[in-house]
Every structure is written in C-alpha cells, then in structure tokens.
C-alpha cells in the first residue's frame, strides 16, 4: 500500500476501486483512514519474513483456527 500525497491522485485511486463519487469531506475522511492503513502496511511489510511459512505449507489456518488445533479436532465428537 503506497502513501499517496496528492488528493487528486487519491481520488483516482478511489474511483478505480469502484467507490464512486463522493464530496470533499468524505474524500478527506477516507484519505485519513487510508493514510493510517498505508503507514501500517509499510510497518508490517518490514516484519514479514520469507521463512515465516514456506510457500508449500502455508494454509488458511488463520481463517479457521480450528484447522490448526489438531489435538482438539482429533478428540472431536458431535456437539450438543
């Protein structure tokens, strides 16, 4: 996520994302959130390491934590 300085460039980005026209107050408020997320993105990108999860083993455990608790699943039985 790149930092976008110019408001007109930001407006183009917003339009490209399908968010439609909006007034200046909305655009400014949205840019405030965007700037925050872009700063976070830069910070987090520096943290991600290639060896966090080798590509062949990365799986969507983060979508459903149950998938990463095999000791729990192995003892599963029907719920109430």
């Amino acid at each position, binding site marked *: *996520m790149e930092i976008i300085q110019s408001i007109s460039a930001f407006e183009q980005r917003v339009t490209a994302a399908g968010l439609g026209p909006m007034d200046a107050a*909305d655009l400014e408020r*949205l840019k405030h*959130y965007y700037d925050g*997320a872009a700063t*976070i993105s830069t910070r987090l990108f520096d943290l991600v390491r290639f060896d*966090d999860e080798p590509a062949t083993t990365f799986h969507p455990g983060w979508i*459903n934590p149950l998938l990463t608790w095999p000791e*729990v699943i192995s003892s599963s039985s029907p719920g109430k």
Partner: protein
Amino acid sequence: MTDTLLKPFMTLAETAELIRTRSVSPVEVAEFHLDRIAKLDESLHAFFTVTRDKAMEQAREAEAEILRGRYRGPLHGIPFSVKDMYMTAGVRTTTGSYALADWVPEFDATAVRNVLDEGGVLLGKVATLECGTGASDEGPFPSPTNPWNPAYSPAGSSNGSGAAIGAGLGLLSLGSDTGGSIRLPAAFAGVVGLRGTYGRVSRWGHIALSWSQDVCGPIARTVLDTALAYSAMAGFDPRDPASANLPVPDFTENLSAGVNGLRIGIDENHFFSQEMDADVKAAVWEAVETLRRLGCVIKKIDLPSVAYAHDAQNLIHSSETHAFHRKRIISEPEKYGPTVRSYIRNGALIPAYDYINAQRIRNRVRSEICRSLRDEVDVIASPTAPRAGEKLTEFTTEKRMKPGINLAHTTIPFSQAGVPAISLPCGFSDYGMPIGLQLAGRAFDEATVFRVATAYEQASPWHTSNPKL
C-alpha cells in the same frame, strides 16, 4: 411479597433460584426489569428496542410451564437482551445504522434461539456501535452512557449490553466480540464478559464484521452467571462454517474447584506498559497477587509479536468489513454514518497482499500465545483496557484506530489467537470508574478460565459494587 424478594442488581443465579423454588414467577421478574428499563433507560440509552409485549408473553409461557412442573433450567424465565447485531424473528435488527433501520428478520440467530429454547425472556435489542465498528451517535439512536458516570462511554461495540447489565436492566445480554467488543464494555461497566473460543458459539444470524475474528458471547453480572449463559449459547451449528463440532461441557461444574498450582502468565513488557494508566496497572497487579495467595504460580512470559497485533487487526478488520458491506456501501453510501462509511470504504483500498501479510503477522501473534499457553502457563492475566474509562467525547473511531496503546491493546491479541478471554471487575480508578482484569486460556478450555475467574471473584469485593442510579 415480590417487592421484598426481587432487588436491583440481583444476579441471574439468585433470580433463577427464586424462580426454580417458585418464590417469584417469571412474570414478576419480567415486569420488574421492564419497569427498571422504563425508569432508567430514558437517560441511559442502552436499548434500541424494548419488546415489552413479547417479553410478557414469553414470561407467561414460562410461568405456565413451571407451574406444570416443567422447569427447563437456570435460564427459564430469565430476562435477557440482545445486541442489535443478532437477527431476531419479528423484531427489527438495525445494527445501529440507517442502512438497516427498518429490517425485521424472519428468524432468530442460533445463539438467541439457544437462549430462548432454555426459557429466556427477550426484553429487547440493545445498542451497538454502528455496524459493530462505527460511531455511537451517527445512526438512528442516541449514544448509550455508562451507568457509573453519564459523562463516560460504556466502550463498544457491545455498548448497550455493558450499559444494560451494569445498570441492572436484565440479567444477561448477548454481545459479540471482534477485537474486544464484549470484554471492553464489560470492563467499563464493572461486570463480566466472555469472549469464548472461536467456533464455540454459532455466529449464524449474527451480522458479520470480521469473519475470521467475530465471536458471540455473554455479558452478565458474575462469573457464574456468565458460565450459565455460555453453557446455553454454545454448541455445534452446521450453518456456521467455523462452528466447532465438539461436546459442550457444563461450564458451571468445576467453578469452585480451586486454583492451587495453576500457572498464571504475565507479560510485563506488552500488557503493563508505561503508557497504561497507573491505577489500572496497580489494580491488576493486586489481582495477580490475590491469585498468588490463592495458590497460583505467577510466571513471567514474553509475547513480542503482540506489539504488532493492532496493526494487523486494522488491515484484516477493514478488508473483511468492506467485503461484507461492499454492495450496500456502493449503492447506498448515504445510509451509513460518516465515520463508518469512511472506515468501510477504506477496506476497498487495501490490496490483497496486505490483507494476507496481516494474516501472516496475526498467525505469529496466535502462535506465540498458543505456544505459551501450551508450554508455559495455564492462563494469561492482563488489564482488559489500558484505562478505566473514556469520556463519551473522547470515544471516537479515529482514536480507536490509532496505532500504539489503543483501547483494545490487550484484547486484540487474544481475538487474533481465537482463544477464550474473560473480563471481570478488579477495582476502581482514581476517578471512580471500574477496572477490568482479563484472563485468557487455551482454546476450548473455557472451564479453566472460568475457574480462575471464580476464585478471584470470590476472594474480592468488586462484583458486589453497584452504580448509584
């Protein structure tokens, strides 16, 4: 005679015993709480919708059943409220937004249905931040206030649940928690709130906010009340793809089994940092000392990735919220308040690689917490929030979204880990607002969390304090 038996701030368990022994009837209990709502909620604003007629009908049915000898259990005849993010059959479900202001679903969310099936009496729908994440004053309803001080916020997003239970309006409220939305309102209102293990309670019929983190859970006056409610809410539901197909234990069974030898983890670096209020840290340290005196072993732990949990949360939450709301935010943006509109729109500007990298960082947070809970300790203790209260004027989305020591600094990591975490009262701040102690445990081991919370609650006076209303 009823007037002498039913008192404000009575607990769910105490009231259930009166109902079971037929000392009071569900009708009397419902009337008592509806009258309190009529008297107090005009200024508290905890309720969006009061379902008086429905409540009285359900109470009469409960009374008739009990008189026929069919007592269903401790929730039979118990008045409860539901955060307006849960669908309720025949009762409008607004999510605190003009976008859904007139929507009346045809069915109940599973968690609501589970409580109704146990004989619960629905008092109404309580407040939520708009769509579970926006402002509290940009939708069709006024902001709820904190029963301990009307200048303060009951936090969010289950602000109506916290305010209602804190004020003794009903005996149980169903809230939901993505990054702290059950635990923070419980802490600010001086009551108990549980975020259970991800997958333990069905989210079917609960309006989504962030699919990979949302959970439904109870807010009540005591740990026992919370355990009673959680036992009813929990259970496998094939309609929720994340629902765990596991047996649900009786969470009240070993509450008083003691805590001798249990290991309590403390991460001083990340959960007791300098930026947190001194009175909050002092109260939580005193609670930890109480647990030590009760036989717990206090161990220092280190969870360095917790420092990035809030950052990861921001990108994950925004992206998932946008995915859910995209159609409507594009076709009817004017129906959303300005704050939540901008927040939801921003999710469209976060690239997929940022969302995935945020989930990778989240995985690191989760791994550290789960590893510590597997190898080092049984429960992790921390403050629920870095401060004891926040004035209504300061409780803004902008402030909540800032990096650093955010209000949800200590709650988000356990949301990301998917493990159970409870908040219960552990003192008061210099300015008279309640302080919350957070206890988090292993996945699907809510029983140990409840056990430690009960031991602390029984050894401390805080749960007996009530606001002057």
